[in-house]
């Protein structure tokens, strides 16, 4: 079960239905350890649903999936300590200080006081939060809240973090700074699985998957995807790929 694997995420025919609607449709994914993997797609494509399955928050209807070599269908509880998750609507406690939020999330992951304090110190250094630890979360700019949420997601030193639209609604400068942090996290050996609708930042990923209506329509390096469609930017390539699918339907 803990067999060494080179995949941080591996799925086979992963499927999720809500009633008679198929939100995730036979998805095969393989994400390398240490990779920054961009998970792109049209609205409603099934990105958040897939991530929630991989994080053990939602049961798949059928198919197989493992995260860090652990089969999540069989051992959902064993997977949780191995991963960090920052949700699309990341939730911090607004009326608490930054440090209290970190203590809370560390506690959720079962960190004991002493190692927790060390981790808070370490992660605050990594993310550049030391000067904010005693500030109340409410009133902080969105860009800072996003960084705090990232810090909370990696406190327990997971092997992989899932970031669902971490930079939604953030100004260009904060986004660049956030991606510097993502690279920092990847440099420490963690796998980063990230969704975004900003195609300029998707270009920073080692590989990206583009999802449409529950299926993966393309999965490769940004360079190859652009080269295959002959587009100068990933945004152009994305729009072409998705628009082609839309046209095929009508």
């Amino acid at each position, binding site marked *: 079960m803990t067999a060494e694997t080179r995949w941080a995420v591996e799925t086979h025919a992963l499927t999720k239905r809500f009633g008679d609607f198929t939100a995730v449709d036979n998805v095969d994914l393989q994400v390398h350890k240490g990779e920054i993997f961009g998970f792109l797609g*049209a*609205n409603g494509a099934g990105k958040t649903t897939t991530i929630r399955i991989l994080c053990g928050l939602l049961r798949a209807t059928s198919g197989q999936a493992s995260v860090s070599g652990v089969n999540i269908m069989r051992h959902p509880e064993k997977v949780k300590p191995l991963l960090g998750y920052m949700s699309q609507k990341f939730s911090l406690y607004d009326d608490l200080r930054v440090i209290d939020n970190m203590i809370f999330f560390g506690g959720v992951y079962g960190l004991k006081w002493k190692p927790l304090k060390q981790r808070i110190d370490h992660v605050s250094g990594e993310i550049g939060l030391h000067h904010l630890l005693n500030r109340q979360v409410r009133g902080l700019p*969105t860009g800072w809240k996003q960084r705090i949420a990232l810090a909370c997601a990696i406190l327990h030193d997971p092997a992989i973090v899932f970031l669902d*639209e971490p930079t939604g609604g953030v100004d260009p400068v904060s986004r660049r700074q956030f991606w510097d942090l993502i690279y920092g996290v990847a440099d420490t050996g963690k796998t980063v699985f990230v969704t975004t609708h900003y195609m300029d930042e998707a270009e920073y990923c080692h590989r990206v998957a583009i999802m449409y209506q529950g299926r993966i329509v393309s999965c490769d390096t940004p360079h190859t995807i652009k080269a295959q469609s002959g587009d100068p930017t990933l945004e152009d390539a994305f729009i072409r790929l998705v628009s082609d699918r839309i046209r095929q339907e009508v």
Partner: protein
Amino acid sequence: MAQKPVDILAVGLQKQYGDIRALQGIDLSVTHGERFGLIGPDGAGKTTLIRVLCGLIRQDKGTFQVAGLDGMRSIRTIKSILGYMPQKFSLYPDLTVGENLRFFADLFHVIGAQRQSREERLLHFSRLGPFWKRRAGALSGGMKQKLALSCALIHTPAILILDEPTTGVDPVSRREFWEILRELSDRDGTTILVSTPYMDEATRCHRVGFMNEGRLLATDTPDNLIHGYPYRVIQVHGENLFPFRKALETIPGVRSVCALGEYLRVSTEKTDAVVHAIGDRLTHAGATGFRIRTVAPLLEDMFVNLLESGRVS
């Protein structure tokens, strides 16, 4: 050429929350049929300004007019003229997509053929047609946002104020949405004030205002703003350049370096010496197979520059 009427006018608007000075004297005018984009870092005061103009909060000092009506005396009339889409728009999660849309159509007395053509246009943009009967609460994040936008656009107000409308919206729908905004202002003469974190969206506005710390620091057409960019932008193209960006930051004359996929974008003083230094430094650091060329600045470069020069002073 006849002068177009001013639809939104602000003079010296100030607003303070405790010791945070959210607006420190905003002067703004948006003319009839104009698309005006508000950009600026998080916490710059964009939402506060929008809320004042929509009559949701009251300014401490200064005055404003909407459609020629005084913001203090006629705020109720103003509210009935304005279409406003807040950053967090609440839908009815237990109503279906169709029921939500119909609810807002009824609310604004949009009926008959007009309702039908609006609905069609909006469904084309949102692609929510197949999900007409799904509860809004069971939609994905971006689908909810698109439904909210559709509810806000089901009627055609003369003046439209939108606060970061496209957060979470995918690139295809985002493009469609801006096409709708373009039609509304260019064809129907709707006046649009819109805040956005997307620089490509700002570029689609007639004029852009850059806000920081409660002040409007620059207001102009996107072209003029970009034209005023005081540095040269050099683009380095090659594989795996990301680790080398720090090596470039210390070159004299380099203002900033940012990674963009396979590119490094370097802002420099306008001298050729810097260009040579970049090539030398990269080679020295072990980079191979890269290409260097000068490119046109983008609005994003100007954004970074305005922000940094604001921080220095």
